[in-house]
Structure formats: structure tokens, C-alpha cells
């Protein structure tokens, strides 16, 4: 990775596994020797929990609210293997403007030049779900992250959220914003799910950077408040995350994706629905092998 700071943003539908993937990625990168910061950009502020034994840390915005000003250093907490953990935080659900909160928190860090001071190799922003407003697009604007990865399963709603994200990336791509590194395909168990995400990646002119299976190891480690890398370093799942980390570390060139229009996306989904039905009813052989 050299000494050039690499800034990465992870997006995806809520509950799809962004924080799990991000934390394991951070842990794997740090065990590869990189100095990493994980910046949770979700008002839930639970991004870094598994890097810190399952505990919540005070957030940038809470500190700002209480003290009126924030020194970046005061809201960085050390996690597994020296990883710098930060949570932007946000308002209580239903009030205020979480989007503006993300902007405030990210700007505050940018202004204080803390990344340079800490001599980081990599900052990973773990951003809430859809790009619902300008605030959640902040990490992909000019001068913040260079690369975006989306975590997606083969579920339509997850693909839909990724496609929306691609629209956001495309919008900012002309003004120096971050570009798309690729898709982390999560919960890849059923045989056909790979085909679906592969097809989606091909249609939107991007790539799959890693297939992460759904695994009980993740659940077990999460219950201990730990990443797989920390709690089960010799497991198959840990190997998968390490491979992802190597891929991300080596990743240089991101691209502008080609998001589908809504109608195209619906047609695409309908086509897959037919195909799955055929597999299920046995009209087409191979259903068993495909995991149906």
C-alpha cells in the first residue's frame, strides 16, 4: 500500500453485513501490518463494536454536543491490534439531521489533519445503508474516500440498494468523487446466489472482490464481541476475510459503475425470478446443485 493514505467507503443495505465485513477487513488489514482507522458513519454507532470487545465508544457528535468542540484525538479509541476506532454518531431516531451529522464529523477529522498525524495507511468508512441524502454521500465526495465497496447479498432489496449507491457514485464521479472498487458478495451460500451477484456486477460494469459465505463462526465471534480475525484466526471464514484484505490492499483502480434504470432493474429481477422458478420446478436440470 506504500505510504499513500488509502481511504475506502463501505456501503450497502441496512443489516446486510457492512459492519461485520468492515471490522473483519480492518482486523485483517492490521494483521497484515497496515495502520488502519475504522470510521463508523451510522447514527447507530455500532460499527466498531467487534473491534472493541463488544463495547460502544463515545461518538464524535455526542462529544461535540457535550463539549461544544472536539479534538479528533479525543474521540479515537484503540481497538484490536491498534486499530483506530471512531464513531460519528448522530441524533436520536426521528429528530435532527443524521446526514448533516456525518458531514460535521467527517469534516472535523479532515480539518484536523489527524490521518497524516497518525501516519495511517488506510481509513475505512462504514456508512449507513442507502445514500438517502447528501450527508450520507459525504464520504464519496471529492477529497474523502477514493474507493467505494458495496456489501451485497443476492436479495433483490440488497441489489437495489447497491444500484442506488452506484447512481450516487456516478453522480459525483465527474467532480472528483470516489469511484467503485467492487462488490463484496456477502452470505453467499446457495449456489444460485453467486450467479445473481455475478450477473448484476457484469450488468453494472463492476466486479466481485470477494465471496463471503454465511457462517456460524461470524455469529459465534460476534457474540463474544470479536471479529473472526481476532477470535477464530484459523477458521475458513478468517481466511476469506484475509483474502479480501489482500485484495483491497492491492486495489488501485476504481471505476465509474453503470447503474441500471429502475425499469431495467425490474426486468433484470423478473428474469432471475423466472430462472429460479424453472430451477425449482425442475424444468431446467441442476436445481439441486444450485442449492434449491
Amino acid at each position, binding site marked *: 500500500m506504500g505510504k499513500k493514505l488509502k481511504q475506502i467507503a463501505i456501503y450497502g443495505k441496512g443489516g446486510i453485513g457492512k459492519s461485520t465485513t468492515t471490522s473483519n477487513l480492518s482486523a485483517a488489514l492490521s494483521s497484515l501490518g497496515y495502520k488502519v482507522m475504522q470510521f463508523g458513519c451510522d447514527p447507530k454507532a455500532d460499527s466498531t463494536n467487534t473491534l472493541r470487545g463488544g463495547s460502544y465508544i463515545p461518538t464524535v457528535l455526542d462529544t461535540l454536543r457535550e463539549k461544544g468542540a472536539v479534538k479528533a484525538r479525543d474521540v479515537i479509541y484503540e481497538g484490536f491490534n491498534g486499530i483506530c476506532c471512531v464513531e460519528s454518531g448522530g441524533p436520536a431516531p426521528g429528530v*435532527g439531521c443524521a446526514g448533516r451529522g456525518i458531514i460535521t464529523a467527517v469534516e472535523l477529522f479532515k480539518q484536523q489533519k489527524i490521518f497524516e498525524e497518525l501516519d495511517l495507511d488506510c481509513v475505512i468508512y462504514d456508512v449507513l445503508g442507502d445514500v438517502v441524502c447528501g450527508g450520507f454521500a459525504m464520504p464519496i465526495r471529492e477529497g474523502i474516500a477514493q474507493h467505494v465497496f458495496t456489501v451485497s447479498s443476492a436479495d433483490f432489496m440488497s441489489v437495489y440498494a447497491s444500484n442506488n449507491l452506484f447512481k450516487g457514485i456516478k453522480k459525483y464521479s465527474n467532480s472528483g468523487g470516489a469511484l467503485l472498487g467492487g462488490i463484496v458478495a456477502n452470505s453467499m451460500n446457495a449456489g444460485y446466489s453467486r450467479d445473481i451477484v455475478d450477473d448484476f456486477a457484469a450488468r453494472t460494469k463492476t466486479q466481485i472482490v470477494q465471496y463471503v459465505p454465511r457462517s456460524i463462526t461470524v455469529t459465534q465471534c460476534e457474540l463474544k464481541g470479536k471479529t473472526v480475525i481476532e477470535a477464530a484466526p484459523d477458521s475458513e471464514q478468517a481466511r476469506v476475510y484475509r483474502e479480501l484484505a489482500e485484495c483491497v490492499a492491492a486495489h488501485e483502480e476504481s471505476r465509474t459503475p453503470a447503474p441500471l434504470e429502475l425499469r431495467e432493474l425490474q426486468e433484470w429481477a423478473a428474469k432471475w425470478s423466472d430462472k429460479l422458478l424453472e430451477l425449482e420446478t425442475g424444468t431446467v436440470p441442476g436445481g439441486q446443485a444450485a442449492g434449491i
Partner: protein
Amino acid sequence: MTETPFHDKPRTSCALGGALAAISALPDVVPIIHAATGCGGNLMNSVAFGAGYLGSSYCSGASAPTSAVTETEIVFGGAERLREQIASTLKLIEGKLYLVATGCMTEMIGDDAGGAASEFAEAGEPVLAISTPSFKGDCYTGYEILLDGIFNRWLRKAGAADPRLINVFGVVPGYDPFFRGDLEEIERIGARLGLKVNTFFSPTQTFENITAAPEAALNVILSRTRCRGFAERFEEKHGVPWWATDLPVGPEATDAFIRELAAKLGIDGAERVVAAENEWYYRYFERTADSYADGELRFYSVTVTNSNYALPLNKYLYRELGWTPAEIFVTDRLEEARREDLLAGFAELPVKPRFVSGSQEIARSIDQGRPVYRGQRYFDALTPLYIVGSTLEKQMALRRGAKYLAVSFPAYDRAIVAGGYAGYRGGLRLYEDLIGSFMSAKG
């Protein structure tokens, strides 16, 4: 030829601005601004200086209470800050009604100002919230939102109706710079008919005029373009019918106004009042005839005003003074249907209004479609020209050698206090101002 560029200053402000200007003219009504720091002050300057130096009043302008939200409230929500502000305002400032008016920021983040206000209202405090972000509309919209809040939400239904009581709406405080003088003339005329007139925003009015409003027999809307929805909702809630007409300026328009008003209310006495007022008016006006005729005080007119003043003013210039309308510019933003309503009123005038608000465009379009002098013997040179507009037209008038008077917002090259152009008295005053403005060069 080098053109001196115009500085295009706005002829309006935002919904919050319109509401605040109106609240400042309501006795015992206290504004509580729920907006970012700056909104209150900037909007106060708009009318305090731009409306003929209207200034500010009790707890308005620079002393208006505000939540002055900053980034913390924007991120975490500003409703708590607002509650604090309402509580402290109730403690420190005397009033009979406290109006929370929101700005853009707090609306964008979805602060529930209405909820905060009703908590106080449920505890028996007279607190009401109105939603006035700029993206809802301009100052005229803000005025209507305010009216809706007070009259259609806050006021309770009345018991009995008073057949001799009327309410007057449509004249927008500050952005109709003569609102006080104009409303008082309507009050005076109404009184001559034996009516009680609620105008709410003139200095003769008290808070009781507001609370008595639901008892009125008629709502008179002095605007062809404003307050339609408001009047309809008022009728729905309080059962008061409405009549939309123009602000009457000069004897002809005011005669018609009196007759129609009396007919609507089914009262006698219109002819008696009309006769007496005309007697009075013309005993003054006849004496202007010498200077008017001998001095050749007739002009081509170009007017630049909002939609409220365009027709009354042009009718006066055309029908009372015999001037020749050359251009009529209407500067406020109107929906298509409201434009149609306005255009209908111009049927009897030789020129139709154009809907333009940029000073540059107005200056340019005065000459558009007119023959240009190329040595012809007969040539319509549009002189002598009189521009009746806002102070933004002053430089254009000077360049063209035209006579000029500011009557519309912003008017900051004159002081407007009790003056107005409505009715008979206003008709004479308009004459004084039009002629006096250039006679002052003599001597």
C-alpha cells in the same frame, strides 16, 4: 454605448419575512423565530428600511425572540432549543399570542415546531406555530400562512354574527408599503357607512379586533391575487362569506367600492356617503385644475408594482388623471390562475400587465416593440414619461429623464408613515406625491 448595470435587488423576501413583517404590525402578538441565526435580523432589515423606513415595533425586528439554531441543533434536532425559547419568551415578554414562525433550516431537518407549540397550548398558553420556510414561497405567501394560522387554526368559532362588522385582508404589511394609511382609509370609509372594520394591521387596531374577527358579516379581500384559499377556509370554519376586490384608489374606484360593499351587506347609505365624499374630494381637486391643465402635467406612465397595487394605481393614472399607460410591470410571482384573475381586471385599460421582476429586464423591455427614432417626422418617443415603481427604478428614470415616484417595495428614497393612497384621501395624496416629486425642483 456603455450601460450602467443595475444592481438587481429583490422586490420580495421569503415566507418567514412576510410573516414577521405582518406580526410586527399586530398588537400584542409576539413572534418566536425558529430558524438559524441571521434570519430574523436580515428579514427585519428588509422592511425596516425597504418599506419607506417602517422600522420595527414591540418585540419585532432586532428584538424578536429567536431560537437561533446552530449546527448542534441542526444535527440533533432543534425542538428542545425551541421549547426553551418558548418558555423563556413566555416568562420575559408580555403578549396575548405567541407565534412560532419557522425558517428553512428547521423545516429541512423536520423539527416538529407544531408539536412543541401545542405542548404549551395544551398547558393553556397562547402559543401557535406556523410553517414559513422560504421554499414554501415569498413574503406574500408568508402573510397568508400567518393569516391561516391565526384566524383559521387558533381562533375559535364565534357565537353570533355582527351584521355591521367586516374584516379586511389582502393588504400585506411592509411589502405593501402604505398598508397602514391604506387600511385606515378603508376603516374611515367603513365607519361612514356605519360599519365596524377590522383591519388588524393598522395602529388603530387592538388584539380584540383579532378575536372579534369570526363574528364578522363579510371578509373583504383587497387583492385579486392573494388570500383566496385563506378566505375559503375562513368561510368553512367561521361561516363568514368573502368578497375579493381591489384596493380602491381615487373617487371613481372608491364610489364603486362603497356601493358594492353596501350591496353585499344589504345596508343603506351608500349614496349619501358617496355624495358627501365626492363633494369633499372635488373641492380640493378642482383647484389643481389650473396647474394641471396649464402645466401640461400629463404623462406616459410606466408602473412597476406588485399585483396588489398594479390595477388600482393604473386605474387612477388612466381614469382620474388621464395619463397614458405605456407599460405595466407586475413583479410578484403568481400562479397561472392568479395571473388570469389579475388580467381580467385590466379589461378596460389599454395596456395589459407584463409579469417581470428583474430591473434589467424591465429597463430593456420598456423600449421593446416600440418604434425607434430614425429621423421620422412623427415618432412616439415615450415622453414625457413618468415611472411609478420602487426605488429600484430610480436610476433608470434618471437616465431616461423621466419623472419618478417610489410607491412599491423596496421604497427607500422616501419616508412612509401614515400616508396611503386608498380611497378619497389617498387619491389626493397620490396626486400630491406624483406632482410634488418633480415640482420640488423649482425655486
